[in-house]
């Protein structure tokens, strides 16, 4: 493959697409597929053929359009958006191509949900066909990889990434450039690049959407990383729970292999790189990097102490670079548009954009991408459209079981790594769950603790035993059988588990409990003293059933 060949593929694809007068993009990411969008696409295609319009109208399956709650979504000619489309609407949609849009299906693409976003990672989502490499190349794909591999030294690539200020999007926020530089410095013939797509946080689906909507972007980022660090082999560790993402990734890898975009001497450079997929098997702890590598090695996914860090001794004890899906998806734009452009977006210490999965008690649930530093209030009330059914906002939970619940008083806080950490939550991988007055915060804390308890791998005692004890106490509180001493014990245990667990799972497992204790203590008190659940969620037994203690 040469640059001219790449250009030729793009030109042919552009020409093919310009023949069509109209283009109907149907979202075929998992959210819309579960509302039968694939059937809608097929029916539209049949209707186009029935009318003999197949040379004028192109029906294309594309990645996530974002507003999952209103699915199936489709976009006509890049300007008219329809929501809640069913197979019966196909004929009307095609009738409307030459006239005014179908009013009853209209979904304004001018609403704040779409207008307030800034897309870097998701720029191709909803535009290109994720199962077609030519479409990705036509959208400018694999150019950054060509630039990096043929015109830049590995050190220059790392310099670009370092100067861009990109930080790991998996949750920790470690500077990506620094990680790459450490792997580069390790002297070894064999090095690995791993893409962490084990998106285990309940309530998060960013990585899934990126893999389903734009798999080549992640592959491109991985190859650039391999070139920069001198790695030859790559793994994508993806959850088995994401069958559609796995299918599209496999297809993308074989397409890229066929075109010589992964393999030996890519673009006639010194870079040779292959990518294999490894399936997770439903263990949350495998999102932790050392546990993930154990799993790739075919063992139980238990973490090990660090140092040595994977950058020095990782997979099979070789230097290993491990980054999240979204981190890799940011690489190509940084290389093609330059570090200054990227560093110009976001806040002082958190650069670029962040993809969030907005869900829970909010009108517009779906996938969003906003610049770092966007106010929480803007995300929940402007983009998210506020709380449905006249509900009252109570909290927003970020960072999944490792994060915390943020109360109303912090809504005017910019969303970046430091601000979230300051108030006892974390950025996490990007799950954002909005809760209203119908959620009991003690119950939410119990939910997350139950999660951590059952996902604890059992290797270190503070996590294995501590989470179980904390869960017991939280159960006691929600049943109305707790005393004030139990809350003190809960705080003590939180401190212990946080400071003495081996890996991130244990260390961060008390966060939901601690943050709810901090901001919603009145709810705990109500459960203990008044034996009453203010939200009416917990089933507190009446006094007659209570054990006399």
């Amino acid at each position: 493959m040469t640059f001219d060949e790449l250009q030729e593929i793009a030109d042919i694809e552009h020409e093919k697409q310009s023949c069509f007068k109209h283009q109907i993009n149907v979202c075929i990411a998992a959210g819309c597929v579960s509302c039968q969008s694939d059937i809608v696409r097929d029916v539209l295609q049949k209707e186009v053929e029935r009318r003999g319009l197949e040379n004028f109208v192109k029906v294309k399956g594309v990645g996530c359009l974002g507003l999952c709650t209103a699915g199936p979504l489709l976009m006509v000619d890049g300007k008219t958006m329809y929501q809640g489309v069913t197979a019966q609407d196909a004929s009307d949609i095609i009738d409307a191509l030459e006239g005014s849009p179908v009013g009853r299906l209209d979904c304004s693409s001018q609403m704040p949900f779409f207008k307030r976003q800034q897309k870097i990672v998701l720029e191709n989502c909803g535009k290109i066909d994720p199962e077609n490499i030519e479409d990705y190349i036509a959208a400018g794909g694999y150019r950054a990889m060509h630039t990096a591999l043929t015109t830049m030294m590995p050190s220059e690539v790392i310099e670009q990434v370092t100067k861009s200020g990109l930080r790991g999007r998996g949750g920790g926020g470690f500077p990506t450039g620094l990680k790459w530089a450490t792997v580069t410095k390790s002297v070894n013939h064999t090095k690995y690049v791993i893409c962490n797509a084990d998106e285990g946080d309940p309530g998060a689906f960013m990585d899934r959407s990126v893999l389903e909507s734009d798999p080549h972007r992640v592959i491109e980022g991985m190859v650039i990383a391999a070139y920069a660090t001198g790695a030859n082999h790559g793994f994508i560790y993806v959850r088995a729970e994401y069958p559609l993402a796995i299918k599209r990734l496999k297809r993308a890898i074989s397409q890229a292999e066929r075109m010589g975009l992964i393999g030996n001497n890519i673009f006639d450079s010194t870079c040779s790189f292959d990518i294999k997929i490894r399936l997770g098997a439903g263990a949350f702890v495998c999102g932790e990097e050392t546990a993930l590598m154990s799993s790739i090695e075919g063992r139980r996914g238990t973490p090990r102490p660090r140092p040595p860090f994977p950058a020095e001794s990782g997979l099979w004890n070789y230097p290993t670079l491990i980054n999240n899906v979204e981190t890799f998806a940011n690489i190509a734009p940084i290389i093609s548009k330059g570090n200054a452009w990227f560093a110009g977006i976001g806040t002082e210490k958190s650069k670029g954009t962040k993809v969030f999965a907005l869900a829970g008690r909010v009108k517009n649930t779906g996938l969003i991408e906003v610049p770092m530093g966007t106010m929480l209030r803007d995300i929940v009330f402007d983009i998210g459209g506020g709380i449905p059914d006249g509900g009252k906002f109570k909290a927003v939970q970020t960072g999944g079981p490792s994060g915390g619940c943020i109360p109303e008083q912090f809504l005017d806080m910019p969303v970046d790594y430091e601000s979230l950490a300051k108030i006892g939550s974390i950025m996490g991988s990007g799950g954002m769950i909005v809760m209203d007055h119908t959620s009991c915060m003690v119950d939410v804390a119990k939910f997350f603790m139950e999660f951590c308890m059952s996902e604890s791998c059992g290797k270190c005692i503070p996590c294995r035993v501590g989470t179980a004890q904390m869960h017991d106490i939280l159960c006691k509180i929600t049943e109305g059988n707790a005393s004030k001493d139990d809350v003190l014990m809960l705080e003590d245990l939180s401190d212990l588990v946080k400071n003495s667990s081996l890996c991130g799972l244990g260390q961060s497992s008390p966060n939901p409990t601690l943050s709810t204790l901090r901001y919603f203590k009145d709810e705990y008190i109500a459960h203990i003293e008044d034996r009453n659940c203010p939200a009416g969620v917990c089933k507190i037994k009446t006094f007659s059933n209570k054990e006399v203690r």
Partner: protein
Amino acid sequence: MEIKVERASGTKGESAKPAEDRRWQMVDRVMRLHGYQSHAIIETLHAVQESFGYIDTYALNYVAKKLKVPLSRVYGVATFYHFFSLKPAGEHTCVVCKGTACYIKGAEDILNGISEHYGIAPGETTADGKVSVVLARCIGACGLAPAVVYDDEVVGKNTPQTVLDKIGRWTNS
């Protein structure tokens, strides 16, 4: 290659000769692709589960022998990961997502509804062996919470009633 393994009593009678069973050929293919190396355990167990629906003692022994690893290690891996099941599942599966978004929007009510109506908890199968109810940590369909997967079909915005109706159709047929 001759493999001497003990067969678990009463299971997979039809797979007495793995070499002739297409399902075992699938499993063998995965091991061969990985050069029979021990790191292929998880991929192989995925293949077993996909072919047979669950992983029994015979399969654990078979994988251990073929990959030349102790049975204890294969057993350890198979029990560590939630995705692997050592028990046969019902004819249909109903996966209820209990991710945060689904929990906030009433996944617990769905599970309670199932347990009240059929008397089964997640991980169990209805008495007639028709439907297994499984709990998922998060299937990533948070925008459609609460989500339920019927066999391989993801359905969003469920209520306890829609779920019971669907299960009811399976158990009556």
